[in-house]
């Protein structure tokens, strides 16, 4: 292997061998049962007083073998399983999976289905960011935003419930389109939600954006440069907050995102505060997309012509979408039978979590909490 590669030169990945017990060092275990690790993440911290010398993530406590299950279910049967990965953005997971299989089958969902898909996915992005905002603020010690965001997230979940009967793991889409026609008044519900929700974003911002303690706690915390993000494969709002203007919805439009006019919010410093601003701005952009989509829903069928028994030809496809947390990819290999030969999920949280060590070194314990929060990981997706 050739040495001194440019990708490595700016990353400090080596952990020098040291005696395990050092009088100056304190090794503590954060998790797997810890209020701030958003599930069952275990972080082993090496501390000098309050300063973090290094950390290692131990994951897998929620491993359910989703990829193995995928090989033993038919294409249709596996669809609800993907909802259980990133359970706060189940609709995005479903969209990615359905589009991948559609690509494998070489079919395309009809326009009406595409529009409804975009609306539901963007609603889901808002819900995911709301949950992130609430829990992130809670980690930093502001307990009130949590309840505000959950109050408003409830409205989105109500729309889901009316649409498909489920609130969290929705299983909203089918391969080839939608299972359900939208209910009467769906558009009106979505419009009502948008009108209700826009002032609420201002409300969140009032609580946090100029709050001095919030700014002090988040600015210059967990800085990561755009270059490091790319080298580590970090995507989503974390990448954008570091100043890289890259969003799969624009870069390689899937569904019918190319029909909509929206901006990609980016940050400059790549710190926790910027990531907060980027996600809040993304909520506003999602509102913009939904506004356009809900006005333009065409009439027509909701399902493409998909055989009852799905048997794609032999082949393999990688398809990825911009999930709320970053690039969510599916790699599906078909051997011509009714079951996928191999399903691989490229989870954004899993890859983003790698950056934790890089972002936390030299910071304080309290910052580790802030950074775990700002990475917006969902352990169901990290461990699958």
């Amino acid at each position, binding site marked *: *292997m*050739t*040495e001194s*590669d*440019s*990708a*490595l030169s700016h*990353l400090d*990945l*080596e952990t020098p061998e040291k005696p395990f017990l050092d009088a100056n060092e304190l090794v503590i275990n954060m998790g797997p049962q810890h209020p701030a690790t958003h599930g069952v993440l275990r972080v082993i911290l090496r501390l000098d007083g309050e300063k973090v010398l290094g950390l290692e993530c131990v*994951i*897998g406590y929620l*491993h359910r*073998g989703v*990829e*193995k*299950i995928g*090989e*033993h279910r038919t294409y249709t049967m596996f669809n609800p399983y993907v909802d259980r990965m990133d359970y706060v953005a189940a609709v995005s997971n479903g969209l990615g999976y359905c589009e991948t299989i559609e*690509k*494998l089958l*070489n079919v395309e969902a009809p326009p009406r289905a595409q529009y409804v898909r975009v609306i539901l996915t963007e609603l889901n992005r808002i819900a995911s960011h709301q949950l992130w905002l609430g829990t992130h603020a809670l980690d930093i010690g502001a307990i009130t935003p949590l309840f505000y965001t959950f109050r408003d997230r409830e409205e989105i979940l109500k729309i889901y419930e009316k649409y498909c009967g489920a609130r969290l793991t929705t299983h909203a889409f089918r391969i080839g389109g939608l299972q359900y026609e939208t209910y009467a008044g769906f558009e009106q519900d979505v419009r009502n939600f948008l009108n209700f929700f826009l002032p609420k974003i201002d409300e969140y911002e009032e609580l946090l954006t100029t709050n001095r303690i919030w700014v002090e706690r988040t600015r210059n915390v967990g800085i990561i440069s755009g270059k490091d993000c*790319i*080298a*580590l*494969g*970090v995507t989503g709002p974390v990448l954008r907050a570091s100043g*890289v203007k*890259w969003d799969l919805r624009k*870069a*390689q439009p899937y569904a019918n995102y190319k029909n909509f006019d929206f901006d990609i919010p980016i940050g400059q410093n790549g710190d926790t505060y910027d990531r907060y601003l980027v996600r809040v701005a993304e909520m506003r952009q999602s509102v913009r997309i939904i506004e356009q989509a809900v006005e333009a829903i065409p009439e027509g069928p909701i399902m493409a012509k998909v055989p009852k028994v799905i048997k794609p030809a032999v*082949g*393999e*496809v*990688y398809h*990825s979408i911009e999930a709320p947390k970053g*690039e969510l*990819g599916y*790699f599906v*290999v078909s051997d011509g039978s009714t079951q996928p*030969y*191999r399903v*691989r999920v*490229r989870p954004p949280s*899993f*890859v983003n*979590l*790698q950056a934790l060590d890089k972002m936390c070194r030299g910071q304080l314990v309290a910052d580790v909490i802030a950074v775990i929060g700002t990475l917006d990981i969902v352990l169901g997706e990290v*461990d*699958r």
Partner: protein
Amino acid sequence: MIAKLKGSYGSGIQALTYAGQNYILVDRSLIPDLLHVLRNEEQFDYCVDITAVHYPNRDKPFDVLWVLYSFARNERIRVTTQISDGETLPSSVPIWPGANWLEREVYDMFGIKFDGHPDMKRILLPDGWKGHPLRKDYPILQQDTEWVQINLGIESGQ
């Protein structure tokens, strides 16, 4: 780009397309060099995913593939290579630091080792676990009963 690569590596490279997606089938021996070239000369600076597929009936039962993306070209490419059981691959952590966990997961699930990886151990399954679950000869209900009994103190996890 493919033509250029073919020019320099000859018959070791096979360019394929399926469903509008390009992927190249590469000989195992070309792997470290080719990835370097893709990273440094062809600007594939983002390693999206590393994974493997198991075909137990083949001579070389494992497909290992790298999904790469270039921000400059807005292009995706898949590099696939075939290796036999027990064969190792050079780690791409020096090329893309983000490959670290992805390679660990491939090791965890398929038992394919990567040489030069800084911390080659299991990631999702517990350290002492026996077997690599995503191999086709690992039945879906199989578990490391011994590990479960020793570490969890229960008869079975099912």
